[in-house]
Protein backbone atom coordinates (compact mmCIF):
# COMPACT_ATOMS: atom_id res chain seq x y z
CA UNK A 1 0.00 0.00 0.00
CA UNK A 2 1.66 3.18 -1.19
CA UNK A 3 1.73 6.30 0.94
CA UNK A 4 -0.13 8.33 -1.68
CA UNK A 5 -2.90 5.72 -1.85
CA UNK A 6 -3.47 5.91 1.90
CA UNK A 7 -3.91 9.66 1.69
CA UNK A 8 -6.15 9.42 -1.39
CA UNK A 9 -8.33 6.87 0.36
CA UNK A 10 -8.60 9.10 3.40
CA UNK A 11 -9.40 12.17 1.29
CA UNK A 12 -12.20 10.27 -0.45
CA UNK A 13 -13.58 9.24 2.95
CA UNK A 14 -13.37 12.86 4.06
CA UNK A 15 -15.24 14.06 0.99
CA UNK A 16 -18.03 11.55 1.51
CA UNK A 17 -18.31 12.44 5.19
CA UNK A 18 -18.58 16.14 4.41
CA UNK A 19 -21.63 15.38 2.28
CA UNK A 20 -23.24 12.94 4.65
CA UNK A 21 -22.66 14.48 8.10
CA UNK A 22 -25.21 16.82 9.61
CA UNK A 23 -24.76 18.74 12.84
CA UNK A 24 -27.66 18.83 15.27
CA UNK A 25 -27.54 22.54 16.22
CA UNK A 26 -30.16 22.19 18.96
CA UNK A 27 -28.02 19.64 20.84
CA UNK A 28 -24.90 21.77 20.53
CA UNK A 29 -26.87 24.71 21.96
CA UNK A 30 -28.00 22.47 24.81
CA UNK A 31 -24.38 21.58 25.57
CA UNK A 32 -23.49 25.27 25.56
CA UNK A 33 -25.81 25.79 28.52
CA UNK A 34 -23.95 23.14 30.56
CA UNK A 35 -20.64 24.95 30.89
CA UNK A 36 -20.42 24.23 34.60
CA UNK A 37 -20.39 20.50 34.04
CA UNK A 38 -16.99 18.89 33.79
CA UNK A 39 -15.79 15.34 33.63
CA UNK A 40 -13.31 15.95 36.45
CA UNK A 41 -15.71 17.83 38.69
CA UNK A 42 -16.93 14.80 40.71
CA UNK A 43 -13.32 13.74 41.31
CA UNK A 44 -12.37 17.20 42.50
CA UNK A 45 -15.46 17.44 44.70
CA UNK A 46 -14.62 14.12 46.40
CA UNK A 47 -11.10 15.31 47.16
CA UNK A 48 -12.35 18.63 48.56
CA UNK A 49 -14.80 16.79 50.85
CA UNK A 50 -11.94 14.50 51.96
CA UNK A 51 -9.77 17.54 52.76
CA UNK A 52 -12.58 19.15 54.80
CA UNK A 53 -13.23 15.91 56.73
CA UNK A 54 -9.50 15.50 57.34
CA UNK A 55 -9.25 19.04 58.70
CA UNK A 56 -12.28 18.52 60.98
CA UNK A 57 -10.79 15.23 62.27
CA UNK A 58 -7.39 16.85 62.91
CA UNK A 59 -8.98 19.82 64.70
CA UNK A 60 -11.09 17.51 66.85
CA UNK A 61 -8.01 15.49 67.84
CA UNK A 62 -6.03 18.68 68.47
CA UNK A 63 -8.70 19.90 70.91
CA UNK A 64 -8.57 16.54 72.72
CA UNK A 65 -4.76 16.75 72.87
CA UNK A 66 -4.91 20.28 74.31
CA UNK A 67 -7.42 19.11 76.94
CA UNK A 68 -5.27 16.07 77.76
CA UNK A 69 -2.19 18.27 78.17
CA UNK A 70 -4.15 20.70 80.36
CA UNK A 71 -5.23 17.88 82.67
CA UNK A 72 -2.03 15.90 82.19
CA UNK A 73 -1.44 12.67 84.10
CA UNK A 74 1.41 10.19 83.42
CA UNK A 75 -1.10 7.82 81.78
CA UNK A 76 -2.51 10.40 79.35
CA UNK A 77 0.89 10.50 77.63
CA UNK A 78 -0.12 7.49 75.52
CA UNK A 79 -3.23 9.25 74.32
CA UNK A 80 -1.34 12.52 73.63
CA UNK A 81 1.46 10.86 71.64
CA UNK A 82 -0.92 8.60 69.71
CA UNK A 83 -3.29 11.44 68.86
CA UNK A 84 -0.41 13.70 67.80
CA UNK A 85 0.96 11.00 65.53
CA UNK A 86 -2.49 10.57 63.94
CA UNK A 87 -2.74 14.37 63.49
CA UNK A 88 0.67 14.56 61.77
CA UNK A 89 -0.20 11.65 59.44
CA UNK A 90 -3.66 13.06 58.63
CA UNK A 91 -2.22 16.52 57.89
CA UNK A 92 0.36 14.92 55.58
CA UNK A 93 -2.45 13.12 53.73
CA UNK A 94 -4.36 16.43 53.50
CA UNK A 95 -1.33 18.10 51.91
CA UNK A 96 -1.11 15.29 49.33
CA UNK A 97 -4.84 15.65 48.65
CA UNK A 98 -4.46 19.40 48.15
CA UNK A 99 -1.61 18.77 45.71
CA UNK A 100 -3.92 16.44 43.79
CA UNK A 101 -6.64 19.10 43.62
CA UNK A 102 -4.02 21.55 42.31
CA UNK A 103 -3.01 18.98 39.71
CA UNK A 104 -6.64 18.62 38.62
CA UNK A 105 -6.77 22.41 38.18
CA UNK A 106 -3.70 22.26 35.93
CA UNK A 107 -5.16 19.64 33.63
CA UNK A 108 -6.12 21.35 30.47
CA UNK A 109 -7.34 19.45 27.44
CA UNK A 110 -6.05 22.15 25.12
CA UNK A 111 -2.45 21.46 26.15
CA UNK A 112 -0.44 19.05 24.03
CA UNK A 113 -1.50 15.41 24.20
CA UNK A 114 1.54 13.91 25.93
CA UNK A 115 1.55 16.55 28.71
CA UNK A 116 -2.17 16.22 29.37
CA UNK A 117 -2.17 12.44 29.34
CA UNK A 118 0.88 12.28 31.65
CA UNK A 119 -0.84 14.57 34.17
CA UNK A 120 -4.03 12.50 34.05
CA UNK A 121 -2.18 9.22 34.55
CA UNK A 122 -0.03 10.60 37.39
CA UNK A 123 -3.15 11.85 39.11
CA UNK A 124 -4.67 8.39 38.86
CA UNK A 125 -1.49 6.76 40.20
CA UNK A 126 -1.17 9.20 43.11
CA UNK A 127 -4.28 7.75 44.77
CA UNK A 128 -2.04 4.98 46.17
CA UNK A 129 0.11 7.44 48.10
CA UNK A 130 -2.88 8.62 50.17
CA UNK A 131 -3.69 5.03 51.21
CA UNK A 132 -0.02 4.38 52.05
CA UNK A 133 0.24 7.48 54.25
CA UNK A 134 -3.05 6.90 56.07
CA UNK A 135 -2.14 3.27 56.79
CA UNK A 136 0.81 4.53 58.85
CA UNK A 137 -1.63 5.79 61.47
CA UNK A 138 -3.06 2.29 62.09
CA UNK A 139 -0.73 1.31 65.02
CA UNK A 140 -1.61 4.51 66.90
CA UNK A 141 -5.25 3.47 67.01
CA UNK A 142 -4.07 0.52 69.15
CA UNK A 143 -2.24 2.65 71.75
CA UNK A 144 -4.32 5.79 72.41
CA UNK A 145 -6.56 4.07 74.98
CA UNK A 146 -3.77 2.90 77.34
CA UNK A 147 -4.93 4.09 80.76
CA UNK A 148 -4.32 3.95 84.47
CA UNK A 149 -6.63 0.96 84.94
CA UNK A 150 -4.69 -1.10 82.37
CA UNK A 151 -1.38 -0.39 84.10
CA UNK A 152 -2.62 -1.00 87.62
CA UNK A 153 -4.95 -3.95 87.07
CA UNK A 154 -3.97 -5.35 83.67
CA UNK A 155 -3.02 -9.03 83.58
CA UNK A 156 0.01 -10.36 81.72
CA UNK A 157 -2.38 -11.96 79.25
CA UNK A 158 -3.95 -8.60 78.47
CA UNK A 159 -0.55 -6.98 77.88
CA UNK A 160 0.72 -9.83 75.74
CA UNK A 161 -2.42 -9.58 73.63
CA UNK A 162 -2.22 -5.76 73.49
CA UNK A 163 1.47 -5.65 72.55
CA UNK A 164 1.00 -8.38 69.93
CA UNK A 165 -1.76 -6.33 68.30
CA UNK A 166 0.31 -3.12 68.38
CA UNK A 167 3.42 -4.82 66.99
CA UNK A 168 1.39 -6.55 64.31
CA UNK A 169 -0.25 -3.28 63.22
CA UNK A 170 3.13 -1.50 63.29
CA UNK A 171 4.82 -4.17 61.18
CA UNK A 172 1.92 -4.32 58.73
CA UNK A 173 1.67 -0.57 58.27
CA UNK A 174 5.43 -0.17 57.73
CA UNK A 175 5.47 -3.08 55.31
CA UNK A 176 2.47 -1.64 53.47
CA UNK A 177 4.07 1.81 53.28
CA UNK A 178 7.25 0.36 51.83
CA UNK A 179 5.64 -2.07 49.37
CA UNK A 180 2.33 -0.55 48.24
CA UNK A 181 3.90 1.07 45.19
CA UNK A 182 2.77 0.92 41.62
CA UNK A 183 5.91 -1.09 40.77
CA UNK A 184 4.34 -3.93 42.78
CA UNK A 185 0.98 -3.66 41.04
CA UNK A 186 1.51 -7.02 39.36
CA UNK A 187 1.69 -8.82 42.75
CA UNK A 188 -1.22 -10.91 43.93
CA UNK A 189 -1.48 -9.24 47.36
CA UNK A 190 -1.72 -5.85 45.66
CA UNK A 191 -4.65 -7.06 43.60
CA UNK A 192 -6.37 -8.46 46.71
CA UNK A 193 -5.91 -5.22 48.73
CA UNK A 194 -6.88 -2.78 45.98
CA UNK A 195 -9.63 -4.88 44.42
CA UNK A 196 -9.57 -6.12 40.86
CA UNK A 197 -11.15 -3.12 39.10
CA UNK A 198 -8.92 -0.58 40.86
CA UNK A 199 -5.94 -2.86 40.25
CA UNK A 200 -6.71 -3.10 36.54
CA UNK A 201 -7.14 0.66 36.26
CA UNK A 202 -3.87 1.34 38.10
CA UNK A 203 -1.82 -1.19 36.15
CA UNK A 204 -3.23 0.14 32.88
CA UNK A 205 -2.36 3.66 33.98
CA UNK A 206 1.17 2.59 34.88
CA UNK A 207 1.66 0.88 31.51
CA UNK A 208 0.33 3.93 29.70
CA UNK A 209 2.73 6.21 31.61
CA UNK A 210 5.63 3.93 30.64
CA UNK A 211 4.41 4.03 27.04
CA UNK A 212 4.29 7.86 27.04
CA UNK A 213 7.77 8.10 28.55
CA UNK A 214 9.16 5.65 26.01
CA UNK A 215 7.37 7.60 23.28
CA UNK A 216 9.17 10.80 24.24
CA UNK A 217 12.56 9.08 24.22
CA UNK A 218 12.23 7.18 20.93
Amino acid sequence: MEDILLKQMWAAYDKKLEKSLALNHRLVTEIQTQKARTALRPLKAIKIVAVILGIIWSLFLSILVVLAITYMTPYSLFFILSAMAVIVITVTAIVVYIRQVALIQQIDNDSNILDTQKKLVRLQLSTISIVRILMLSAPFYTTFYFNKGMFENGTIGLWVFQLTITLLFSALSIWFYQHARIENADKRWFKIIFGSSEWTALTKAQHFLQEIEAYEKE
Partner: protein
Amino acid sequence: MAPPKEDKVFLSVIEQHKGIIYKIANSYCHHTEDRKDLIQEIIFQLWRSFDRYNDQYKYSTWLYRIALNVAISFYRKDSQRNSAHELTADIIVVTEETADVEQLQLLQRFIHELPELDRAIMLLYLEEKSYKEIADILGLTETNIATKINRIKGKLKTKFSTIHT
Protein backbone atom coordinates in the same frame (compact mmCIF):
# COMPACT_ATOMS: atom_id res chain seq x y z
CA MET B 1 -24.11 32.36 30.11
CA ALA B 2 -21.87 33.23 27.17
CA PRO B 3 -22.80 36.13 24.90
CA PRO B 4 -24.80 35.06 21.82
CA LYS B 5 -21.96 36.09 19.48
CA GLU B 6 -19.59 33.63 21.13
CA ASP B 7 -22.29 30.96 20.88
CA LYS B 8 -22.63 31.52 17.15
CA VAL B 9 -18.89 31.52 16.50
CA PHE B 10 -18.60 28.25 18.42
CA LEU B 11 -21.43 26.70 16.46
CA SER B 12 -19.82 27.68 13.17
CA VAL B 13 -16.42 26.27 14.30
CA ILE B 14 -18.10 22.96 15.15
CA GLU B 15 -20.03 23.02 11.87
CA GLN B 16 -16.80 23.51 9.92
CA HIS B 17 -14.92 20.82 11.82
CA LYS B 18 -17.64 18.24 12.38
CA GLY B 19 -15.88 15.84 10.02
CA ILE B 20 -12.72 15.91 12.16
CA ILE B 21 -14.70 15.29 15.34
CA TYR B 22 -16.56 12.40 13.73
CA LYS B 23 -13.38 10.80 12.36
CA ILE B 24 -11.58 11.03 15.70
CA ALA B 25 -14.59 9.59 17.56
CA ASN B 26 -14.89 6.84 14.97
CA SER B 27 -11.22 5.94 15.32
CA TYR B 28 -11.40 5.62 19.11
CA CYS B 29 -14.89 4.08 19.44
CA HIS B 30 -16.38 1.40 17.26
CA HIS B 31 -19.71 1.12 19.02
CA THR B 32 -22.38 3.61 18.02
CA GLU B 33 -23.48 4.40 21.58
CA ASP B 34 -19.90 4.99 22.78
CA ARG B 35 -19.21 7.13 19.74
CA LYS B 36 -22.28 9.24 20.46
CA ASP B 37 -21.10 9.76 24.06
CA LEU B 38 -17.58 10.58 22.92
CA ILE B 39 -18.80 13.17 20.39
CA GLN B 40 -20.87 14.82 23.12
CA GLU B 41 -17.91 14.86 25.49
CA ILE B 42 -15.59 16.31 22.83
CA ILE B 43 -18.06 19.09 21.98
CA PHE B 44 -18.63 19.81 25.66
CA GLN B 45 -14.89 20.05 26.36
CA LEU B 46 -14.41 22.25 23.28
CA TRP B 47 -17.11 24.58 24.58
CA ARG B 48 -15.51 24.67 28.05
CA SER B 49 -12.17 25.67 26.54
CA PHE B 50 -13.59 28.00 23.92
CA ASP B 51 -13.12 31.22 25.92
CA ARG B 52 -9.45 30.29 26.47
CA TYR B 53 -8.84 29.72 22.77
CA ASN B 54 -5.48 31.21 21.82
CA ASP B 55 -5.68 32.71 18.34
CA GLN B 56 -1.96 32.21 17.73
CA TYR B 57 -2.97 28.63 16.88
CA LYS B 58 -5.33 27.59 14.10
CA TYR B 59 -8.81 26.50 15.18
CA SER B 60 -7.98 23.06 13.82
CA THR B 61 -4.85 22.71 16.03
CA TRP B 62 -6.82 23.72 19.12
CA LEU B 63 -9.64 21.39 18.15
CA TYR B 64 -7.36 18.41 17.43
CA ARG B 65 -5.62 18.79 20.80
CA ILE B 66 -8.85 18.79 22.75
CA ALA B 67 -10.63 16.16 20.67
CA LEU B 68 -7.66 13.76 20.76
CA ASN B 69 -7.06 14.31 24.48
CA VAL B 70 -10.71 13.62 25.25
CA ALA B 71 -10.80 10.61 22.90
CA ILE B 72 -7.65 9.04 24.41
CA SER B 73 -8.89 9.59 27.98
CA PHE B 74 -12.32 8.23 27.03
CA TYR B 75 -10.77 5.19 25.36
CA ARG B 76 -8.57 4.50 28.39
CA LYS B 77 -11.44 4.78 30.86
CA ASP B 78 -13.36 2.32 28.74
CA SER B 79 -16.21 0.79 30.74
CA GLN B 80 -15.22 2.61 33.94
CA ARG B 81 -16.41 5.97 32.68
CA ASN B 82 -19.64 7.19 34.14
CA SER B 83 -22.34 7.96 31.68
CA ALA B 84 -23.10 11.51 32.75
CA HIS B 85 -24.75 12.41 29.51
CA GLU B 86 -28.31 13.47 29.49
CA LEU B 87 -28.62 13.89 25.75
CA THR B 88 -29.91 10.84 23.95
CA ALA B 89 -29.90 11.92 20.30
CA ASP B 90 -26.90 12.10 17.94
CA ILE B 91 -25.15 15.46 17.73
CA ILE B 92 -23.48 14.56 14.46
CA VAL B 93 -25.77 12.49 12.31
CA VAL B 94 -24.70 10.43 9.29
CA THR B 95 -27.53 11.18 6.88
CA GLU B 96 -26.45 8.63 4.29
CA GLU B 97 -24.17 5.65 4.58
CA THR B 98 -20.66 6.31 3.33
CA ALA B 99 -19.60 3.93 0.62
CA ASP B 100 -18.18 0.83 2.22
CA VAL B 101 -15.05 0.57 0.18
CA GLU B 102 -13.20 -2.51 1.30
CA GLN B 103 -9.81 -0.81 1.34
CA LEU B 104 -11.12 2.06 3.45
CA GLN B 105 -12.67 -0.35 5.92
CA LEU B 106 -9.35 -2.14 6.17
CA LEU B 107 -7.50 1.13 6.71
CA GLN B 108 -9.94 2.08 9.47
CA ARG B 109 -9.55 -1.32 11.08
CA PHE B 110 -5.76 -1.13 10.98
CA ILE B 111 -5.80 2.39 12.42
CA HIS B 112 -8.08 1.18 15.18
CA GLU B 113 -5.60 -1.59 16.00
CA LEU B 114 -2.75 0.91 16.55
CA PRO B 115 -1.82 1.99 20.10
CA GLU B 116 -3.73 5.18 21.05
CA LEU B 117 -0.79 7.58 20.57
CA ASP B 118 0.22 6.07 17.20
CA ARG B 119 -3.43 6.32 16.19
CA ALA B 120 -3.46 10.05 16.94
CA ILE B 121 -0.32 10.58 14.84
CA MET B 122 -1.69 8.57 11.94
CA LEU B 123 -4.99 10.47 11.95
CA LEU B 124 -3.15 13.79 11.84
CA TYR B 125 -0.86 12.52 9.10
CA LEU B 126 -3.78 11.36 6.96
CA GLU B 127 -5.45 14.73 7.56
CA GLU B 128 -2.41 16.25 5.77
CA LYS B 129 -1.16 18.11 8.83
CA SER B 130 2.44 19.29 8.64
CA TYR B 131 5.06 17.62 10.84
CA LYS B 132 5.33 20.88 12.77
CA GLU B 133 1.59 20.95 13.50
CA ILE B 134 1.56 17.27 14.48
CA ALA B 135 4.54 17.93 16.76
CA ASP B 136 2.68 20.89 18.36
CA ILE B 137 -0.44 18.84 18.94
CA LEU B 138 1.39 15.82 20.39
CA GLY B 139 4.12 17.69 22.28
CA LEU B 140 7.03 15.98 20.48
CA THR B 141 9.80 17.16 18.17
CA GLU B 142 9.37 17.16 14.39
CA THR B 143 12.19 14.63 14.02
CA ASN B 144 10.50 12.33 16.48
CA ILE B 145 7.21 12.68 14.59
CA ALA B 146 8.92 11.89 11.26
CA THR B 147 10.48 8.73 12.70
CA LYS B 148 7.19 7.59 14.18
CA ILE B 149 5.21 8.25 10.99
CA ASN B 150 7.65 6.12 9.00
CA ARG B 151 7.38 3.34 11.53
CA ILE B 152 3.57 3.45 11.60
CA LYS B 153 3.36 3.53 7.78
CA GLY B 154 5.62 0.52 7.72
CA LYS B 155 3.26 -1.30 10.08
CA LEU B 156 0.23 -0.43 7.95
CA LYS B 157 1.95 -1.53 4.74
CA THR B 158 2.82 -4.85 6.31
CA LYS B 159 -0.79 -5.33 7.40
CA PHE B 160 -2.12 -4.50 3.94
CA SER B 161 0.39 -6.82 2.27
CA THR B 162 -0.53 -9.65 4.65
CA ILE B 163 -4.18 -9.26 3.64
CA HIS B 164 -3.41 -9.22 -0.08
CA THR B 165 -1.14 -12.25 -0.10
